[in-house]
């Protein structure tokens, strides 16, 4: 029997080792309550940003396409910039990402992106992150512009979804809309649970 037991021990070790080394299976989406997917992207100024850089800090990630009517709804009305200003003022980091592929609607070269950032009075922590290969967008499961994510200092997603509860393209509805992002930030910054942690993101499809 001893002779038999040895190979079984060895066998288990031989099986276990390769699997423990296997990378953990990661789902391609940012899911509330789960760790945020890693990313590493270069902004329009050529500076690189990764999830690691924002460890221990609050982070909002926003998907952007300058030609999307829903992005225009929130930028034309000044709603998005006001949010950016309010929360970056409270030490929340804010990254705005363009995942449009080259040749698709909304794609911007770095110089153009700088110009658009200026013309849109962007109030974010960095000029646009340029994700033209779509790797960050796919990792987060970003479907629409705008698609919003809030990440806490522990690196977990606390909110994923639409900016608010009104999917009209008309900026006139903004004052009556319930803004999910600011609700999530206000609640979690004051240590409370987020009431709505997920919603159907509305807007234009991300042009991967």
């Amino acid at each position, binding site marked *: 029997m001893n002779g038999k037991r040895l190979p079984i021990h060895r066998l288990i070790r031989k099986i276990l080792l390769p699997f423990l080394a296997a990378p*953990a299976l990661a789902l391609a989406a940012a899911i509330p309550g789960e760790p945020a997917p890693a990313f590493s992207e270069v902004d329009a100024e050529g500076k690189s940003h990764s999830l690691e850089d924002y460890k221990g800090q609050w982070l909002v990630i926003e998907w952007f396409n300058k030609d999307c009517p829903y992005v225009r709804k929130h930028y034309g009305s000044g709603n998005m910039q006001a949010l950016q200003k309010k929360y970056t003022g409270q030490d929340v980091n804010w990254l705005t990402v363009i995942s449009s592929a080259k040749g698709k609607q909304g794609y911007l070269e770095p110089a153009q992106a700088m110009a658009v950032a200026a013309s849109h009075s962007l109030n974010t922590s960095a000029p646009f992150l340029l994700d033209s290969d779509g790797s960050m967008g796919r990792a987060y499961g970003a479907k629409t512009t705008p698609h919003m994510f809030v990440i806490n200092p522990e690196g977990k997603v606390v909110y994923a979804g639409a900016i608010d509860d009104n999917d009209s393209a008309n900026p006139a509805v903004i004052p009556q809309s319930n803004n999910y992002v600011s609700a999530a930030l206000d609640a979690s910054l004051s240590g409370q649970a987020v009431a709505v942690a997920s919603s159907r993101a509305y807007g234009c499809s991300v042009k991967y």
Partner: protein
Amino acid sequence: MSIFRCGVKAILFAAFVILAHPAGAQSTASGDHVRVRWLAPDTFAQGNAETIGFYFEVDPGWHVYWRNAGDSGAAPRFDIRAVDAEVGDIQWPFPVRLPIEHLTNLGYEGDVTYLFALTPKAGAERVALDVNLEWLVCKVDCIPGFGTMQLSRPVAQQANWNGTDRALRDRFQARVPGPQEQSPWRAVEMVEAGAGQLRLAIEPTGEGGAVVPQVFPVDGELLAAAEPRVESAQGRVDYTFTRVPGAPLPTAADFVISDGQRAWLLDAIPVGAAAQQWRALWLLLLAAFAGGMILNLMPCVFPVLSIKLFGLMGPGATTSSRVGEGLRYSAGVLATFAGLGAMLLLLRAGGAAVGWGFQLQSAPVVLLLILLFWLMGLSFSGVFEFGHRLMNMAGRSHGGSFATGVLAVFVAAPCTGPFMGAALGAAVTLPAAQAMAIFLALGAGLAAPFLLLCASPAVLNRLPAPGPWMEKLRQLLAFPLYATVIWLLWVLGRILGESGWLIGALLLLAVVFALWLGKSFGRGARVAAYMLVAVATAAVFGALRTPPPVAPQSADRGWHSYDKLAIEQALAQNRPVFIDYTAAWCITCQVNKKLVLESASVMDLFRANDVLLIRADWTTQDAEITAALSALGRNSVPVYAWYAPGAREPELLPQILQERMIAALFTESAKFQYNEDEKP
């Protein structure tokens, strides 16, 4: 701002009064790619509800949306103010799925009418509506549209329609979902199906047509719009939807179900009654048990068990000793299943992506099995006296039967048979206790026939009496074992590359040589023989550490290796895709491959229909393929996934394929295509 807007409105209104409409009201709205007009009668009938609507004429290739627009987009909005009339909610004709790149929207191809009921108030002579509209029209880019429309109509004895408009209204009204009671399908249950998925099961209320209906989730906050995975069996159809990440599990959900002509609302389907889940588990356990029983007949298990059984038929054996053996054997089987199951669950908890059959993805295990089968084959042939003695011993000693049980499980792993796939797939997604129950049910199934034979002298007596024929049969049974050795060597070759064959064959040679040494010379030679085997084994296992070569197989006779991007691209182009999830160590897979998938007629069919053929080879551990399998609710091979043209979710084919099943795919997809073209 508002003064300005009022001013603009006033000017526009004045302009319309003067220019556009003699009646002073605006009866149409339009924007880029969209024109909207009323479908309404010239007069309404007193006190009678009349269904009227907004007729959207949309340019070809552009879309407007359903109430749940899906992954992007937005449903149109109608802000209706009525004078002297009651208006009902918007009635939405059932949509189609509109795949846009990696997203799915729910909307309409071509024109559509959004309907609602209008009832004139008692005594009203005229009804009037003032509507603010907003819509979104998309091709790839999206353009929002805004407009205002007015309607003013007299109320008369009866409704008076323009014939064409009424026909148009009727056409779309027929597509508005009817009540659940009239639906030819009813919801059987809705349960959580693994992480982030929800499964709705329906069955026909009556005869049930041949059509598999489309199901659309009404709430986009809860379920993704992407086509659910569809599995149908005996009239029951299961739709597995992906949940919106992070959305809390609701207590109930609404769906619209459509046969392509009409539609019905399945409202407030409750999620996951516990009793139903238990029933599902109970069914899975039964399937696992049946699958385990069938395993006994598989070529890898059958010889081992037959010989064991003969050992128990010897003259010295009493019924009680046989029952003891049977129980020990069962304990061996169950303990091994429990051990493997626990390991699988532990690895799963650790985040590793593994599936059933994983023990055969490791070269050392395969090599051990080769050695084991080789020694058993030699001993069956009578070459190997020691083995003979070992076998006799195995027939009597306690450890022997237990070891046979362990062995049976290990050699059974490559033979995923019927019933096993679903049970094992479920085991991976279920909570640990239930998953373990499924593993044990498989073990119980595997052990049951042997235990039954041991425990029942009546059955055992029916077997032919022991005699010299047993010797001949044992020699005969050596040959399936040799065949297994050849096959496992091939598997080793697939894992390690060319050198696999050589390494394995050299070890076998060393073993045979050592046997001859030990048999032919004295005690010293026997020691030398043991040492030779030890050195050879050590050398060979050492050689296994060489990293497996990366073998990029781009295309093997029309089959491409697994490439997620290529699959997504093909799906985006509405090209059909067939994925063969397979492994060299899976016998069932190899049989299907040789007899069906690579037969000339099937390959011709695939070529004629421009099917992208993908071979997802799981011979060695591959996290991406494991993930793809688990997305299909499986974690064993074979799995055959068929994406019909335009389908976003696969249909899963049975584990034992036949040519006519493949042929049926193309006749069905042709039919489907025809229905698609029929749309107005």
